[in-house]
């Protein structure tokens, strides 16, 4: 009798262990999802770069235009866009 009980106990224990290991503890039900890992903080260094391309040397500014043609020597702030007769 004792031997049979011991075998049955070990079998039930093994089954329960398997359930718990699988995350389905019968005492507490389905386990809560693991808390989301805290978001990694990534430090981004913002690099501002400005690309100026011109085909030709800046032409003489036309009479009706107030926009200087940008060149390699253009200051950091781009010239304001200009609407004009075309």
């Amino acid at each position, binding site marked *: 009798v004792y031997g049979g009980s011991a075998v049955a106990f070990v079998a039930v224990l093994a089954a329960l262990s398997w359930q718990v290991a699988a995350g389905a503890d019968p005492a507490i039900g389905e386990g809560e999802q693991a808390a989301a890992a805290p978001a990694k903080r990534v430090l981004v260094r913002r690099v*501002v770069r400005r690309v*100026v391309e011109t085909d030709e040397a800046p032409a003489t500014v036309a*009479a009706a*235009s107030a926009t200087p043609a940008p060149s390699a020597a253009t200051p950091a702030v781009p010239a304001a866009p*200009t*609407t004009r007769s*075309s």
Partner: protein
Amino acid sequence: VTHDVTFTCMGCDMRLLAEGVNHEAIRAARTLLDAIDARLSRFRTDSELARLNADPRPTVPASPLLRAAVGAALWAAERTRGLVDPTLLDDLERHGYTGSLAGGPRVALADALAAAAPRAPASARPDARWRAVRIDNRAGTITRPPGLRLDTGGTTKGLAADAAAHVLAGARRLVVDCGGDLCVAVGSGAAPFEVTVAHPLTGARAATLRVAGGGVATSGLARRLWSRPDGRPAHHLLDPATGEPAWTGLISATALAPTTLEAEALAKAALLRGLAGARRVLGRRGGVLVHDDGAVESVEARVRRGGVLVHDDGALGATA
């Protein structure tokens, strides 16, 4: 990264000013503008538009780009009730506009104004020949009466600016400048652009428009101006009803609209309508008019969409 690319195309100075796009997108936009120039220039005998105009058949196969350009021109004609008319090429050439006028005016604007015909508003051709033009996108053809030649020059730059902006969609801040016709796009949270309106007589700043999106275009007499063989001044904005250059009392009109194509059409229509008509044309979204005497007038928008007009004296007015 901010790209600021300038180049010459369509006989004009072009500029792509864009933040937050890569170099390939800039290159693609420029390639598109060059293709539009090559395919739609009426000054290139090998352009598709020139071949269409030389084709004796009433129905001619046409590429999607040519169909789009002609479609845009017809849309502008409809939108302006025939004032922006793409069928005036014979008149333009009769007045001497047979080649590119890139490089600036041949006549000073002030001298031309002094010698010009009496001022009068322009009006549409009663026969509205543009209505006879048909586009069949399924068949890929354009049909027009034999001999009727088309000029898409009045709307191509606006269309091109909109198309190039589409290629650069996603930019944080963007201006596509096609010879002074601008397509502006600003992403959420980014600062709007301050667009300068150039004075046609002096080139100085006439007004400033704070623009967060849409089209801004100016139509005026200052750039494409020449003398006819008889000495009379001529320019490229014709009165459709007479076929003669329109002297309406305005030398420049700047319009705002949801697209650059529409802004370009409205700017031309405003200038052609003359002062009273221009105020009505620009009244919905606002704009700027410059009178023959150089006076600058801002037109208040009936529909406010966040644009602000800042005059040189600091006064504010509502625009687009």
